[in-house]
């Protein structure tokens, strides 16, 4: 095969696109590191050495992942000058496979948001219509993939933060089973649902990147050993006989009429292929959203309590130690982050924990039980990604409750720790494919089937 262009040129072209882009998708460019790595790949090709599948492939990283020596800001004032001292396991595995990191990507601060407007770097604009939000919290990552600035990007998904921006920008985004990929080196939001996952333009790219990042890691003891998913496995789409969808999601008053009609049309197409489709009962959207946010806020209040400006971060000196803590936190956290931290401390405090936090945990168990029961009857659960199309920039920040409720279709699968993929087909913001825990391969199989069908 004749060499048409060098890896260095590929990387430089992408860096130029990222640098000049008007979508606010970039927090910082990793140009020096990227060009050095690209030169090494070119030298390898020049000397006739074989290169790996991901070698020389440019990718983006949500700005919540540690990459040694790079700024890792979580799109926050508190960490705007913070440099990672080490590299996240998932990112290290990609670096070891030869992939080239180009950019730390804009997102909602500490993952706190569904629109990528809660950021000090300016709201991320939607790749299809720049008056609209990109979705979030991994908005910059989804936009960079949609605009071909990166071949794939690594997002983080706690309650929908990969799947929803993937849907809003018409690309693929996978939240794998919780524990399949190490969380070591991602800034913790809600540790019991935080997942690392890829955003890309094809199912095959998702599969390759997932395989590279997966595996047990001694530095994250919730990880487990998983089998690599082969190309052949996911091309075999005959295994899926029965799927289900949540009736109440579709019958809800909150769903956009077109999203509903498109979803039901997709269901009809699936039926024509001889797949049985079952209507399933599920919890009401407000229960799902409230359970998720109660637990996520409790966890983020604990996780972010370390950010007090003592060892790192933008410390603002007060009269004494406690004063320094509270001024630093008051001035440097965004309104949304403060709202969640305060909410978390409310539910964890004496007198409230029993009737809210512990009850939330109990509801989570019931949600998981419900999924277990469902997956005895169906192989796959299909759902819209969002009830509505993306809002205009500026609307979400004014109405936090509406923003929380817009996560209605994604948070349940997070609480269940299930593998769930957004495929950019079927409705304006795509379809979500979920399977039982550890069944990530089945999700990709069905995605292939749907990709051909719709």
């Amino acid at each position, binding site marked *: 095969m004749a060499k048409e262009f060098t890896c260095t040129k590929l990387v430089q072209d992408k860096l130029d696109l990222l640098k000049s882009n008007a979508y606010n998708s970039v927090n910082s460019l990793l140009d020096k590191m990227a060009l050095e790595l690209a030169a090494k790949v070119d030298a390898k090709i020049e000397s006739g050495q074989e290169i790996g599948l991901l070698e020389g492939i440019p990718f983006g990283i949500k700005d919540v992942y540690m990459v*040694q*020596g790079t700024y890792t800001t979580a799109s926050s004032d508190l960490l705007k000058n913070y*440099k*990672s*001292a080490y590299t996240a396991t998932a990112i290290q595995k990609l670096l070891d496979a030869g992939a080239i990191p180009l950019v730390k990507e804009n997102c909602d601060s500490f993952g706190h948001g569904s629109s990528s407007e809660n950021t000090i770097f300016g709201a991320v604009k939607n790749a299809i219509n720049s008056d609209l939000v990109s979705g979030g919290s991994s908005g910059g990552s989804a936009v960079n993939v949609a605009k071909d600035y990166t071949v794939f990007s690594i997002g983080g998904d706690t309650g929908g933060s990969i799947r929803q921006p993937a849907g809003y920008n018409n690309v693929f985004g996978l939240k794998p089973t919780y524990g399949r990929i190490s969380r070591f080196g991602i800034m913790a939001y809600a540790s*019991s649902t935080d997942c690392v996952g890829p955003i890309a333009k094809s199912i095959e790219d998702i599969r390759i990147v997932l395989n590279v990042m997966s595996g047990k890691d*001694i530095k994250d*003891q*919730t990880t487990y050993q998983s089998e690599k998913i082969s190309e052949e496995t996911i091309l075999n789409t005959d295994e899926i006989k029965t799927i289900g969808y949540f009736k109440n999601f579709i019958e809800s008053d909150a769903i956009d009429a077109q999203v509903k009609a498109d979803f039901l049309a997709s269901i009809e197409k699936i039926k024509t292929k001889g797949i049985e489709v079952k209507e399933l009962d599920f919890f009401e959207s*407000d*229960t799902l*959203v*409230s*359970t998720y*946010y*109660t637990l996520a806020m409790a966890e983020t209040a604990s996780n972010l*309590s370390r950010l*007090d*400006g*003592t*060892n*790192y971060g933008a*410390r603002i*000196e007060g009269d*004494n*130690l*406690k*004063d320094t803590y*509270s*001024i630093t*936190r*008051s001035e440097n*956290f965004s309104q949304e982050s*403060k*709202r*969640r*931290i*305060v*909410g978390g*401390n*409310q539910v964890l*405090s004496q007198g*409230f924990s029993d*009737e*809210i936090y512990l*009850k*939330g945990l*109990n*509801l*989570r*168990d*019931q949600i*998981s*039980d419900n999924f*277990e029961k469902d997956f005895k009857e169906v192989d796959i659960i299909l759902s819209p990604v969002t009830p509505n199309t993306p809002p205009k920039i500026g609307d979400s920040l004014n109405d*936090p*409750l509406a923003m*929380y409720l817009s996560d209605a279709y994604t948070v349940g699968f997070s*609480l269940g*720790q299930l593998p769930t993929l957004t495929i950019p087909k079927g409705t304006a913001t795509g379809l979500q494919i979920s399977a039982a825990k550890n069944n990530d391969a089945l999700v990709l199989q069905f995605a292939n089937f749907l990709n051909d069908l719709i």
Partner: protein
Amino acid sequence: MSKIMTVDILSSIKGAQPSEAVNKLFEVIKNANLTNNNSFKNNHNNAVSLDDLREDVVIDSPKEEKKIIIENFPKEKNGYLVVSKVIEE
């Protein structure tokens, strides 16, 4: 020792108040029906077994890591982190 801690103290955020939007979410939980009362069934329990714990050893950070940790100090003097005077109340 029954001092009431308000959310601004618990959160170390000056003037912090509970928000109306978040309280609405909590109301939903308070009013939700539970079909069982066992809070600790733990389907979401991801704890590892005692046989599978990592070794309890101190690992010295590499030089580069230490250098960056010091670079991140908000206030530094002769390579040491400077912190406010600790007060007892």
